[in-house]
């Protein structure tokens, strides 16, 4: 199906009390004349001001495809497939998750289910975080780490309630978990909506724009966060066969601990840039046109996950370089 017919889906995550409902209601009241469907969970905060609110159950299904970390949200498949049969076309769909939800099955649903992928597209994962409480939540709940790890945008809310150094500390912690997420400081979720909607964050084109702070990846384990990120750069072209061999084995054996990956790859003998991005073991990859004139060709690879230091990632990546 043509991509312009795909309805964008924005996923709102964040802990209870962070301000998800405030943000949701802002989106719904400010986007006049647009038709939104809002999918909420039954334990969520109340008071959503929209005609089309659908209750979901956050039902996580394991796919029976031999991949233990491949889980999807069964309720989303059912509801999104139903919504796509409506006669009146929707401008966008917003999925609100509970504070304790793992974003991976939500994201994986858009990779795995063909009907969902044909008619909708995951636009972005927006995580609302409470600047006051995020640090303790990150320490106490692995779900909070996952929500930061999967975020395309972190809306750091209630910044009026922390001092400047406290704010810097929490931002640093977010960056350490997820160097690509855009962090937006807000009070009462006061953010321009074009910074959180229609981002197309899961498209491969966007991966090309990702410029995380590669050089700042000094791994001082001040907070000892479980989820971290590692990035690698190489100006030596890679051997395609070696890379595919290493990377597919890596995902097959460590896919459960690797939450998100993104990369731009320069293969020997190929004139095109290869771009990919993935969630756990699921991967979207494609050649994305020629390297720009006058720019140095280099491969860049970023991992977000757990126990990354035990995966020999640096060695594995080095071994993919063409001799």
């Amino acid at each position: 199906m043509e991509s312009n017919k795909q309805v964008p889906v924005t996923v709102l995550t964040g802990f209870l009390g962070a301000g998800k409902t405030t943000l949701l209601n802002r989106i719904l009241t400010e986007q006049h004349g647009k038709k939104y469907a809002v999918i909420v969970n039954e334990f969520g905060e109340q008071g959503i001001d929209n005609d089309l609110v659908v209750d979901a159950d956050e039902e996580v299904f394991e796919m029976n495809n031999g991949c233990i970390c491949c889980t999807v949200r069964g309720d989303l498949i059912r509801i999104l497939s139903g919504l796509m049969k409506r006669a009146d076309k929707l401008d966008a769909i917003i999925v609100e998750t509970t504070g304790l939800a793992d974003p991976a099955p939500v994201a994986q649903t858009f990779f795995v289910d063909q009907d969902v992928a044909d008619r909708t597209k995951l636009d972005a994962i927006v995580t609302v975080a409470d600047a006051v409480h995020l640090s303790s939540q990150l320490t106490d709940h692995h779900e909070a780490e996952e929500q930061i790890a999967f975020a395309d945008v972190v809306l750091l809310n209630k910044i009026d309630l922390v001092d400047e150094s406290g704010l810097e500390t929490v931002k640093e912690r977010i960056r350490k978990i997820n160097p690509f997420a855009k962090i937006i400081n807000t009070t009462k979720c006061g953010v321009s909506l074009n910074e959180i909607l229609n981002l197309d964050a899961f498209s491969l084109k966007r991966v090309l724009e990702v410029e995380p702070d590669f050089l700042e990846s000094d791994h001082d384990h001040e907070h000892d966060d479980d989820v971290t990120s590692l990035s690698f750069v190489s100006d030596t072209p890679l051997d395609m066969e070696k890379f595919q061999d290493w990377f597919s084995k890596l995902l097959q054996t460590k896919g459960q601990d690797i939450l998100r990956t993104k990369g731009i790859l320069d293969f020997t003998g190929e004139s095109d840039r290869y771009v990919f991005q993935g969630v756990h073991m699921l991967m979207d990859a494609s050649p994305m046109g020629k390297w720009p004139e006058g720019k140095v060709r280099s491969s860049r690879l970023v991992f977000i996950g757990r126990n990354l230091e035990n995966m020999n990632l640096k060695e594995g990546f080095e071994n993919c370089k063409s001799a």
Partner: protein
Amino acid sequence: MKADLNKFTELNKTKFENRGKELRLGIPVINSVVIGNSIAVGFGDGTIRIFKAGQSSEPIKAHNGIVLCISKDGDDIITGGDDGRFLRISLNGEISEIANFGSRWVDHVTANNGSLVCTSGNNVYLWMAGRKEPKILEHESTIGGVAFDSKGRRLAVSRYGGVTLWKKDYSNKWKSSNLLWKGSHNKVIFSPDDRYLVTSMQENQLHFWRLKDKTDSTMSGYGAKVKSFAFVHDTKFLVTSGSNDAVCWPFDGIGPEGRQPICLPFVGNKLVTFVEPFPNENAIFTGLSDGSVFLSEIEKSSNTIIIRSFTESEVTTISVTEDGSSILIGDMAGNILWTSIWDEENK
């Protein structure tokens, strides 16, 4: 006076299209149900239309959002919607509400032999003949489909992890047993002889159980989810969508295990999206993702004729009247063809 104004556009049309009635409604067709020689169709704007021989169809507003599911109870149409309502609609268009679940969708409806069923979330609501209040059958996950056996004594409920099989004992109590198979199960049907139970799964495959000894097996090899499947000619074949061919699994004799399906190919390599048996024949109607529909004899694959040419929208329903005289075809873009199957001289 008949001018040939439409001569050019009609050149590519089939004789079935030329002699039938075509509607271009622009509203997604969800599904349809046959009641005698009438066919009721549910739409993505909450309306239904009832097609009877020689009569035009006016929309009947049934649900606020979408008609999620449509079935029949005797001579009545029953529907469930995303407005949480479970409705009974007579062939004259009179609507009565059986139940209202508010913001919860009514995902599946069925009926047999006086028992009436709808599902919402994890629950089956079962009205026994003459009872006002439903019995609630609870399940651990959302229900993917429901089906009664031919006598209405057993109710199969598909879900995550398998099928719950509810059986009515002679004191009219419903007791459950489980048929387990890992994964999420969607649509479920009994074979017409009640010997087999078949489900389609979230994965691109079907699963079946032989009920006598509860042996089970998987039918796989599909390129897409199998959304439409049905038994043909009593229980001779199970015909399935989800591939570029109409895949027909043999269910006669020892069943499908260890046997190869018959694959009926179509020109253009489009995905089969809907299959419907021709009543009492060893033949099927096959609807494709480009809107075209073919009639084929299963064991003579050369014997295929085109019923409807393409509309560029996937076929979402095909229904044939009980007497086998007329066919209704609907697609995702809201194009409908309602036409007679037989040429005038062959009637």
